[in-house]
């Protein structure tokens, strides 16, 4: 019971039509609340990394003979908020919404958000009401992870509001545990429980959940402290003492996020020398940085958080050891007197970037102490995204040899493959540093072709071990998704995931 008022970091209510915008937060509050996907994340546990579980699909399998052909069995008896039943045809309709520009339900805004999430999908057919077939372009074992992105909106509702996404946005309909009751752009959205939700354990206990965009961290803090909201996302570290002092609860947990310097591996980059890469990783005093973040971080031990199921057992120990770093640099021919000079791209802000400026300046000091002189190229966040898309060889990066980026690393593709795959070298893909290594590429292929989940996990671990051992990134820290809760918010379990389950929450 009760009303939970949430202060989001987004500046606006995320897109309500299905495929949301506003990044991870959009999916968290407006995606998995109002909608379901075929395959979902298990958000019930705080103790272990979340795994995929059945959503609107109850089972899926890949054809033994044709590894591009997948069959999905869909859940029966699921109805949308508008009362219409969910069938396989709806899934096809939703894929067309994103992929088929000629379909009447094609929505460029949702497509912009969703299309790139399912690069493997070639075609899809409804075999019967509850069986769906998907053909992938090439064999790709990561398809389930991709499908976890895609949210299913109600075709019947689309029809009912006059085939207009604008109108649909105002009264959306999905199959999710929450229904959107009202919404005022940029101000608030009110969600109420979907009492007919197919998973009874996830029928919300609250009467209402109100989402309020509060992009400014201090406004968020003030709103929480003055009792106008009960929950805020990402409290500013310095406001936390005031909150805990007043009985507010800080919830945090590891989740698949990292804060790194993506290194350039183009011709002539000093980062091509593994000794330099390792030295840099050894030079960073991650514990010291923790003070800056009010302890709300997990020092990096690798590219993935230490608690990840894919962490493995790398041999290179990412730790703070300036002496070792100096030794390595000396081998590579650099010293305090003759420091290595590098340029680094950073941005003063950006979603998920934590506190980019102080953190980078801190890094700069750390690196200077072992003989790496960093000069920053500071650009706006939007410009940074452009530079990230352009890649390390693009002239517009002005010779920068690294880019400070934070990554969503929740699944095999976003977690590992996209950063270093030879076929994704920028500007055609997301491999900013132009890294291309046959051995790594082999591992990536293996991931895509390993259809057994556990075997696939093993390959993932091997891949991550190579990430760490070769020190392919400057691995700095992981965010812990802090959120501050009023004392009377009970029953929240923070999963190790970008998304969260709000159904268990009650207000006292």
């Amino acid at each position, binding site marked *: 019971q009760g009303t939970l008022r949430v202060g989001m970091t987004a500046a606006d209510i995320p897109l309500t039509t299905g495929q949301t915008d506003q990044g991870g937060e959009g999916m968290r509050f407006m995606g998995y609340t109002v909608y379901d996907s075929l395959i979902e994340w298990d958000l019930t546990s705080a103790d272990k990394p979340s795994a995929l579980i059945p959503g609107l699909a109850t089972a899926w399998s890949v054809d033994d003979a044709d590894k591009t052909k997948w069959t999905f069995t869909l859940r029966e008896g699921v109805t949308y908020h508008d009362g219409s039943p969910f069938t396989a045809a709806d899934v096809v309709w939703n894929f067309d919404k994103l992929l088929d520009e000629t379909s009447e339900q094609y929505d460029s805004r949702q497509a912009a958000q969703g299309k790139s999430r399912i690069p493997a999908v070639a075609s899809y057919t409804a075999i019967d009401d509850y069986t769906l077939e998907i053909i992938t372009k090439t064999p790709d074992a990561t398809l389930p992870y991709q499908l976890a992105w895609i949210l299913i909106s109600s075709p019947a509702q689309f029809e009912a509001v006059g085939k207009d996404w604008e109108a649909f946005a105002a009264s959306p309909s999905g199959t999710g545990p929450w229904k959107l009751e009202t919404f005022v752009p940029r101000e608030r959205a009110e969600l109420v429980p979907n009492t007919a939700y197919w998973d009874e354990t996830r029928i919300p206990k609250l009467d209402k959940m109100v989402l309020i965009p509060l992009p400014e961290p201090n406004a968020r803090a003030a709103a929480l402290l003055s009792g106008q909201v009960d929950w805020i996302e990402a409290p500013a570290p310095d406001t936390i003492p005031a909150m805990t002092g007043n009985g507010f609860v800080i919830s945090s947990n590891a989740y698949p996020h990292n804060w790194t310097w993506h290194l350039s591996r183009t011709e002539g980059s000093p980062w091509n020398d593994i000794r330099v890469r390792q030295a840099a990783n050894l030079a960073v005093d991650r514990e010291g940085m923790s003070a800056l973040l009010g302890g709300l971080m997990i020092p990096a031990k690798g590219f993935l958080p230490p608690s990840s199921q894919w962490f493995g057992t790398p041999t290179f120990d990412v730790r703070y050891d300036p002496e070792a770093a100096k030794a390595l640099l000396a081998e590579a021919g650099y010293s305090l007197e003759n420091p290595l000079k590098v340029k680094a791209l950073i941005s003063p802000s950006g979603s998920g970037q934590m506190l980019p400026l102080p953190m980078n*300046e801190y890094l700069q000091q750390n690196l200077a102490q072992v003989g790496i002189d960093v000069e920053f190229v500071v650009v706006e966040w939007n410009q940074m995204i452009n530079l990230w898309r352009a890649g390390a060889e693009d002239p517009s990066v002005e010779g920068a040899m690294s880019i400070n980026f934070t990554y969503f690393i929740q699944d095999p593709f976003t977690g590992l493959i996209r950063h270093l795959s030879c076929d994704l070298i920028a500007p055609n893909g997301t491999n900013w540093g132009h890294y291309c290594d046959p051995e790594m590429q082999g591992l990536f292929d293996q991931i895509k072709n390993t259809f057994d989940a556990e075997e696939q996990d093993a390959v993932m671990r091997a891949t991550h071990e190579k990430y760490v051992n070769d020190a392919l990134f400057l691995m700095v820290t992981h965010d812990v998704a802090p959120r501050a809760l009023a004392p009377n918010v009970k029953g929240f379990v923070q999963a190790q995931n970008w998304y969260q389950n709000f159904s268990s929450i009650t207000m006292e």
Partner: protein
Amino acid sequence: MALIETHGLEDPISEAGKGYWSGVGSRLIRDPVTMICLGVILLLILSAVFAPYLGLADPYTGSMIKRLAPIGTEGHILGTDEQGRDMLARLIYGGRLTLFIGLMPVVLAFFIGGALGIVAGYLGGWVNTVIMRTVDVFFAFPSVLLAIAISGALGAGILNSLVSLTIVFIPPITRVAEAVTSGVRSLDYIDAARASGANALTVIRVHVIGNVLSPIFVYATSLTSVCMILAAGLSFLGIGVRPPEPEWGLMLNTLRSAIYINPWLSALPGLMIFITSLCLNLLSDGVRSAMNVKD
């Protein structure tokens, strides 16, 4: 017939031969408030200029361990900021940038707008029409809005702030310069000068500039405090000076969350902005009354 105040023929004014500016000066000196404000501003400017020689801590590097040290901490009289950098040093170095982007646009606008206004006011006719109608368009934007719009479009950066603020302050100065100039233009001594055969340039140089400059100047000084607050506001909003530069508006922004930990510390940049703009305002008022220029 009270047009003329009459003095004795013998020696009406004891300080005969004394220039206009020395009169202004002596009136200023007798005004304690203005002098104090002048002192504060001079102090700020001097300390900003000579910051590197004051033996201050490095305003760019700090230590995370000492972050947010309270005012009065040993070695950091005014405490440290969120990155453990010395506040005193940052405030003083911050004065550099803040005063620079707070005063420079007005200075630039004073020259540009002043020149435009004098030309428009003296020449009149279509030159006046073109200049003043263009100025009118800019007047359609409230100044804050215009500054934010241009800065918002151009993006953050010192140069961009300078450009946008200068654009904001050119129109009002042009308008005042035009009004003052056309007022002076209609006075008999301008006619007398023209009647002696002097060309427009000479008349402007000898007779116009000297008489319009001080009202324009006084008006411009009254804009400095607005400009400073606006410049700091841009930084505060994140579209002015970029971190890690010390700038009061920006410091105010980055120290905002520290208000829960160390409220006095986070109030310091705001206080500096307030004091400086207060002094600028009082100074401008003082100069105005000393020059006895009517509004």
